[in-house]
């Protein structure tokens, strides 16, 4: 039962969704629509699961005074602040929507929006921006034309890097053209073949999952 029912669930859901794709029958569409709603709700619970798991792990670390527990306390405090701020925003919006005014105005000056704009925003953006530095240092220290393939890769990369920005046209008017030709023809060919391969891989995985040959949900 532990293993059989999940197989049946995934087969049932999968087959209905595939049928909805190929069929124009209204009944199939109605069932598949409801199943899609289930998928949407279940996936939002997976976000909740992630958050609860984070709370569980960090709360435990703080209670047991494990290494770096101070940071974890900071994490929990900022998390709960954000949740409470969200609750306040939600309450204010619901009141406005009830009064029938919500469709024309929106509340923007809440603590929630402040924290999104001035805490979450800069942190998220800067953590990704760190990669700019790593790409530069890797370009110098590790990317070597050690064989014909890597050489070809680096030559194409250099053409794209120079041709894609205005300075390329300033150096030689052919660079932007060359860049675009490279992107639209050889790149399209390579990407397309890779995508066809990936599609066949997805077909294989999809069929194997739906027919219960592969069961990723039993792992872990």
């Amino acid at each position, binding site marked *: 039962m532990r*293993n*059989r029912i999940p*197989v*049946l669930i995934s*087969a049932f859901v999968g087959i209905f969704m595939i049928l909805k*794709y*190929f*069929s*124009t*029958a209204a009944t199939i569409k109605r069932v598949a629509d409801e199943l899609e709603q289930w998928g949407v709700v279940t996936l939002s619970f997976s976000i909740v699961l992630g958050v609860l798991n984070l709370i569980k792990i960090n709360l435990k670390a703080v209670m047991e005074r494990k290494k770096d527990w101070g940071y974890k306390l900071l994490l929990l405090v900022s998390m709960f602040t954000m949740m409470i701020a969200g609750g306040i925003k939600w309450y204010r919006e619901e009141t406005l929507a009830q009064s029938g005014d919500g469709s024309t105005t929106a509340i923007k000056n809440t603590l929630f929006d402040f924290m999104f704009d001035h805490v979450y925003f800069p942190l998220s953006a800067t*953590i990704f921006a*760190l*990669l700019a530095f*790593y*790409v530069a*240092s*890797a370009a110098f*220290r*590790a*990317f*070597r034309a*050690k064989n014909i*393939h*890597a050489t070809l*890769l*680096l030559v194409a*990369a250099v053409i794209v890097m120079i041709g894609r920005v205005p300075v390329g046209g300033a150096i030689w008017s052919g660079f932007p053209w060359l860049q675009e030709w490279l992107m639209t023809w050889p790149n399209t060919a390579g*990407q397309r073949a*890779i995508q*066809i*391969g*990936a599609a*066949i*891989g997805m*077909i*294989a*995985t999809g*069929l*194997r999952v739906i*027919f*219960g*040959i*592969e*069961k*990723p*949900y*039993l*792992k*872990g």
Partner: protein
Amino acid sequence: MNGQGNQQMRTRNARGSEGRTCCFTGSVGHRLFLALVATGWATALSAAPAGGRVLPREWNYIDLEKLPVLIALVLFASAYAFLYYRTKAGRPMRLRRLPGIDAIEEAIARATEMGRPVLFIPGINDIDDIQTLAGINILSHVAYIAAEYDTPLIVACRRSVVLTISEEVVKASSLAAGRPENYIPNNMRYLSDDQFAFTAGVNGIMLRERPASCIYQGCFYSESLILAETGYVSGAIQVAGTANVAQLPFFVAACDFTLIGEEFFAASAYLSRDPSVVASIEASDWLKMIYLIVILVGVALATAAAGLPHSQTILQLVEFLKEIM
């Protein structure tokens, strides 16, 4: 019912690919599968000859604009079913040995010569990612070879579940190679769940313990270039494999050998010899060959249509080909 089959397969997998549990618990899946393949063929064949667009848009609640997809699925499913049963019946698999596998073995040999450890990373995703599973299949081979050569193997994981499974795989492979002592629990490292903290941890291992070879097989994201750079600067031989197209350029430019996309899955299938995986790689090959021919026919017809712009027959033929393929 399939217990015995599983048993046989486990024995055949003596190198210990326990990471991949075996297929088909019941016959329900089997029969459903065969029935659907059969009806699929029947529908495809009976739907094909009708007049109209060349074909009509809809036929018996079937959206004929989606017919090409249906035909492709049915073709693949048939090829897969055929190859699966043939492989299971004992026909040797036709997959060729990829140069990437030799590159991995050479990297381990090199570490043995230098008397330094090998570092393996099975990607940074959890076990439900198919790439992680493929990486763990390769890990079982790496652990076997490393045990044969008596070279220490360090495995760094980002997810605790992946760590647990890696431990079992390495233990089983070391045992299969006749050197259970080559499994060193301390070398199985769980570093951090956070992406960049994990990367920093791996960098630390590379710089302090100086592995002679670094093998990255699995799903990687933006940390790929940081890993490859540190590995390169530390002078290690690096072999990478992933299906993330956006990360492959960095691996190709910084590593000594890279398994590209499907090659990575094929290498994993070759090493695991699990019939259900091998059959799916072979079936993919068949589908590719069929559609390669379709492309060439299409190109020929399009060329003819372009050369003879007034021939309605050729235009109709091209249209028909587009509607079914």
